[in-house]
């Protein structure tokens, strides 16, 4: 079964966020990386780019497919994990750790609370299976 850490919040598009103050770290879930297969490239935004809620900020490419990644929370990009493109397999092997993608300074931190908890995301995955 997919690994779903307790301390993160989840979106229906299979992104996770980790909140510290008004900064949200964003990546894709274990379920998402497994569905995609071997990741070979991540198209990232730039630091300073601004995104609204649920806007496409980049894409993850596997050998077989490409999937857009959306910002579950609106805000300004403060950091980008460019190391991911040196070791794209980290998105598969460590999606919640070294496979993180961007950090965003949230316009409205309340948006994070509206996202799914680990329990809710697990139910969501079971319901859509």
């Amino acid at each position, binding site marked *: 079964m997919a690994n779903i850490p307790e301390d993160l919040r989840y979106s229906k598009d299979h992104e996770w966020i980790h909140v510290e103050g008004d900064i949200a770290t964003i990546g894709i879930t274990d379920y998402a990386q497994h569905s995609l*297969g071997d990741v*070979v*490239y991540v*198209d990232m935004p730039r630091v300073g780019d601004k995104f609204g809620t649920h806007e496409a900020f980049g894409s993850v490419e596997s*050998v*077989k497919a*490409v999937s857009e990644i959306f910002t579950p929370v609106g805000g300004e990009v403060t950091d980008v994990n460019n190391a991911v493109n040196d070791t794209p397999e980290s998105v598969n092997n460590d999606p919640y750790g070294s496979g993180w993608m961007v950090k965003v300074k949230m316009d409205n931190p309340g948006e994070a609370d509206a996202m799914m908890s680990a329990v809710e995301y697990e139910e969501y995955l079971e319901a859509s299976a």
Partner: protein
Amino acid sequence: MAEELKKTPLNDVHRELGGRMVDFGGWDMPVQYTAGVIEEHMRCRTKAALFDVSHMGEIWVDGPDAIAFVNRLTTNDVRSLVDGQAQYSALTNDNGGVVDDLLVYRFGPEKLLLVVNAGTTDKDWDWINSRHTDDDHCSLTNASGEFCQIAIQGPDATGILQKMTDTDLSAIKYYHFKEGWVDGVEAIISRTGYTGEDGFEVYADPGCAEQLWNKMLELGRYGEADGILPCGLAARNTLRLESAMSLYGHELGDDITPYEAGLGWIVKLQKGTFTGCGRLQKQKEEGITRKLVGFEMTEPGIARDGCDVYINGQKQGTVTSGSPAPFLKKNIGLAFVPTDFANDGQELKIDVRGKQIAAKIVPTPFYKRQK
């Protein structure tokens, strides 16, 4: 209600091995197993890999006119084959377009086996029958359900298969075959493949598929780091693309001629009349207006099938296949472009989801095995 997917005799085995099953032209096939497409691809290039290709179609042509009949429907010269030899060829329509690409096996002067693509087997069967008249003294038999086909490919493939048969595999040259026994099972052992590696395709009774497959995994030391791996459709595609082999429905189709697809070497105009030869003769004399080329991306980004190709700001063509190349560690593809631009080094822009990403035309095949 969707039509039920067709299954090869190895369907249960794929599931047991953790195969991720997808609908492939109406067949329930593994796109990858647990190792993942990159590892599967690399293992085929460096060790050995196993592919279930039982979904391919097989058609027997028997009788005194077998060679003349198949020669009339295909572009290559069937008369040049000797017993025990196979030939890559194309079935063409009246416009010289490709109905399908296929292998023609010569078992004897009056016995040929046509091996065609899975998704086009019914179309090919109908087409071949529509061109068969009472004057053609040969019978046609669709034997697609009577064979399993397992491809064992890679540098270690011959060594593994040799442990299963008394037939001297070193005596079978590339694009040749022998009838023999593999693990006690009557089989056709063909030195052919779709990966760019050395290897064999083994045809046998579908009831023996599991036995042969499992024995190959066992003798190939499946599970060990340098052992054999089963490969799914995803690795099959990246392997053939690195080797710049055509995939029907991508580089080949009813409105694409062999010349346009870079397959002029399988068109033998001098052999006499065959379906579509008039148009092909004309193309040969006048030249083609579009041509299949290989390209690699020179900026980050991956071209995918169907992406538009721009040259000097104008849309000039379309990507037929595009993918990361796991062994070459580049992003590569094939595309049709106007002949005037089909030169090595030509700069291209590929429209990848609205962004123009730079690429350049390179020689094919992208990957060539060291012999």
